[in-house]
């Protein structure tokens, strides 16, 4: 028992905690993996979708919008300059002044004031009136800055403009040193069909270049205005002006842009990978008012740089979810596992208690058994020893089987003198320890009576009745305790004469095949209700050689068993005795035991059993 308990105690904690922890950890890890996977998957998918959408939007809308806006700005500025130039060219006062060869002072003041005002009020870097009559070059602020000469190549623009006959024309003068490009609008002034002057305005695109910056889409993006040779005229970066498109984009892409379909007003999109392996998105279009092209390019990396926040957010989201999940799982598994844990602890506690109680019980039981063992030794010590019995009988046997190791049955013998002896079998009410108490008292009373009074069985029983009553029923209040006994006593004289008296115990005598059942009296003795005046009868028996006598308590005949679980009964005992023939008493004892064991089978013993057989 003890070793078993220790084994269980060692086993339980060993097995339990790691088992529990491993399970929880497994669940947490699995859940984390699943959730990280799903976050990564959804993030990746949404990242890809968003990237595609962003790139698509960039190409189809944002870049086009930028480039269209810039083109419109440039075109608008130039168109306005054209209009201004044409208005100046058709001003009748100015025409008249030029046609008069600049002689009219009043008109001259007007014309000079006019160009100065235009330059000042409409933000043109230059305004001019160049007369074909006087070849005078009048600039803003009434300055006469040059006289046109056909021999001067710098004045070629003037003469070619006159000869072209175009109402309005465009002349670009890029000044690389100043990092600026000037656009001159030349309008032909006619007086009655004859060209008299070229007038116009000059404007710088520097202002527009400033606007490029406002459209800047990213650190690495470029917006260029390039001419038919691929030369960059405008860029938000001054150092790039004057350089060529080839310097920045792959030559095949550059030539594709330069030689591309000029007539189309639609922006063209190109995607290419540069020498650094970066994907570049490029959009270009032609301007309406010039054959220049606007080119806008941006590295893909940069345009989708906003998406990197999605990456970062997904990362942060995964991390936070991870922490939360671990926490929640840990918490939940703790909360869920706790009752389980408690149940284990409880069952362990109960197991412990049970084993303790079992231990306690087994200790108590051991104590009781020890005590009963001792009681048995005491009870056995009052029973007559075998050497005394050997002296009394030629042969005898005794079956003494208390149901609970000690019991209410006992046998008693006394050799009074050389020729006289007494033998008795008594059955006190109760079994076990209570029965044993009775036997101790009755045994002692019986010995007293025989010692002090007489050896007459009937008298002994009558006296025993009185004395037991006196001894056991002194306390009237406990009326329910009513104990007594059955007894059968034989007095034997000279091995010739036997006198038997019984109180509910009979004497069986075997003579040859015959069995004589000497009943004795039917009343038990010693009970509260037993009358003090009970009288008992002595039965005389002349002993013949071979007579065998049997005294037994009711335990033997009352033992249940057999097919119907009835008591063994007198009939079977009778048959047993008569069947013994010439068998000696040791054999007969065996026969009694065999019959009993065979009859009771697996049934427990019902009562204390005593059988005494003897012969003279």
């Amino acid at each position, binding site marked *: 028992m003890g070793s078993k308990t220790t084994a269980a105690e060692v086993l339980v904690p060993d097995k339990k905690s790691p088992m529990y922890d491993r399970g929880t950890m497994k669940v947490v890890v699995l859940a984390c993996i699943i959730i990280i996977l799903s976050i990564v998957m959804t993030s990746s998918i949404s990242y890809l979708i968003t990237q595609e959408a962003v790139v698509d939007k960039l190409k189809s809308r944002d870049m086009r919008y930028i480039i269209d806006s810039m083109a419109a700005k440039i075109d608008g500025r130039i168109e306005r300059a054209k209009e201004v130039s044409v208005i100046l060219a058709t001003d009748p006062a100015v025409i008249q002044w030029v046609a008069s060869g600049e002689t009219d002072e009043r008109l001259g003041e007007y014309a000079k004031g006019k160009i100065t005002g235009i330059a000042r009020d409409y933000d043109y870097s230059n305004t001019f009136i160049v007369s074909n009559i006087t070849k005078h070059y009048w600039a803003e602020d009434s300055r006469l800055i040059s006289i046109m000469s056909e021999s001067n190549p710098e004045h070629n623009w003037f003469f070619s403009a006159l000869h072209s006959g175009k109402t309005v024309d465009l002349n670009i003068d890029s000044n690389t040193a100043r990092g600026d490009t000037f656009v001159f609008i030349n309008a032909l002034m006619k007086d009655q069909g004859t060209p008299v002057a070229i007038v116009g305005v000059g404007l710088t695109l520097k202002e527009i270049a400033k606007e490029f910056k406002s459209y800047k889409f990213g650190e690495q993006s470029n917006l260029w205005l390039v001419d038919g040779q691929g030369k960059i005229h405008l860029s938000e970066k001054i150092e790039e002006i004057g350089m060529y498109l080839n310097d920045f984009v792959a030559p095949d892409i550059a030539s594709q842009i330069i030689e591309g379909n000029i007539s189309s007003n639609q922006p063209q999109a190109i995607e290419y990978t540069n020498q650094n392996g970066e994907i570049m998105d490029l959009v270009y279009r032609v301007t309406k008012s010039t054959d220049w092209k606007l080119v806008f390019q941006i590295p893909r990396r940069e345009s989708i740089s906003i998406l990197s926040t999605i990456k970062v957010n997904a990362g942060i989201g995964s991390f936070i979810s991870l922490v939360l999940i671990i926490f929640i799982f840990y918490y939940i598994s703790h909360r869920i596992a706790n009752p389980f844990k408690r149940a284990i602890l409880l069952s362990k506690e109960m197991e412990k208690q049970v084993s303790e109680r079992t231990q306690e019980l087994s200790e108590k039981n051991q104590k009781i058994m020890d005590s009963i063992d001792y009681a048995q030794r005491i009870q056995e010590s009052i029973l007559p020893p075998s050497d005394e019995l050997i002296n009394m009988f030629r042969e005898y046997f005794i079956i003494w089987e208390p149901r609970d190791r000690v019991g209410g049955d006992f046998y008693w013998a006394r050799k009074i003198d050389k020729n006289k002896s007494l033998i008795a079998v008594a059955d006190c009410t109760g079994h076990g320890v209570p029965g044993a108490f009775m036997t101790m008292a009755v045994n002692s009373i019986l010995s007293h009576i025989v010692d002090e009074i007489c050896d007459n069985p009937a008298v002994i029983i009558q006296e025993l009745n009185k004395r037991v009553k006196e001894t056991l029923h002194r306390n009237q209040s406990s009326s329910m*305790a009513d104990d007594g006994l059955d007894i059968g006593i034989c007095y034997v004289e000279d091995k010739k004469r036997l006198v038997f008296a019984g109180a509910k115990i009979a004497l069986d005598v075997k003579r040859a095949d015959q069995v004589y059942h000497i009943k004795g009296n039917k009343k*038990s003795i010693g009970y509260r209700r037993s009358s003090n005046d009970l009288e008992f009868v002595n039965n005389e028996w002349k002993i013949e050689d071979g007579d065998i006598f049997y005294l037994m308590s009711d335990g033997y005949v009352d033992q249940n068993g057999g097919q119907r679980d009835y008591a063994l009964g007198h009939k079977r005992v009778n048959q047993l005795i008569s069947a013994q023939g010439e068998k000696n008493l040791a054999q007969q004892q065996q026969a009694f035991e065999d019959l009993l064991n065979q009859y009771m089978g697996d049934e427990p013993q*019902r009562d204390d059993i005593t059988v005494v057989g003897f012969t003279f």
Partner: protein
Amino acid sequence: MEKLYIESTKSTPEIRFDPVINQMYIKGQSYPENAFKFYEPIFAWVDEYIEQMEQEVLVEIYFHMPYVNTSSSKCLMMLLEKLDEAYQAGKKVMVRWYYDKENEMAMECAEEFKEDLTVPFEINPVEENS
């Protein structure tokens, strides 16, 4: 008055005492460790029952007990004596004892009871088919 019903156990009989139909029924073996404790409430019931018993009504007591140990038989005797007294006091009481034909000890037990009583006591063997 309430009915008295006690279920049988391996060592105690089934008790079914019905004051309405005036029948008492005891069936089963009786060998409890403490017979007085078992029979005490039964005595109490019987005392109360006899107290309120009407003169004209016939009370029948059925016994069917294959085995009765010594202390139980003392208790049964006390029970029967209570009924005997009632009978002697003029009340109508009838004891019917049944035993299985083969069970001689049960019959002997009944006969021993009968000898000490004046109340009408019928002992009937029954075929063993239970």
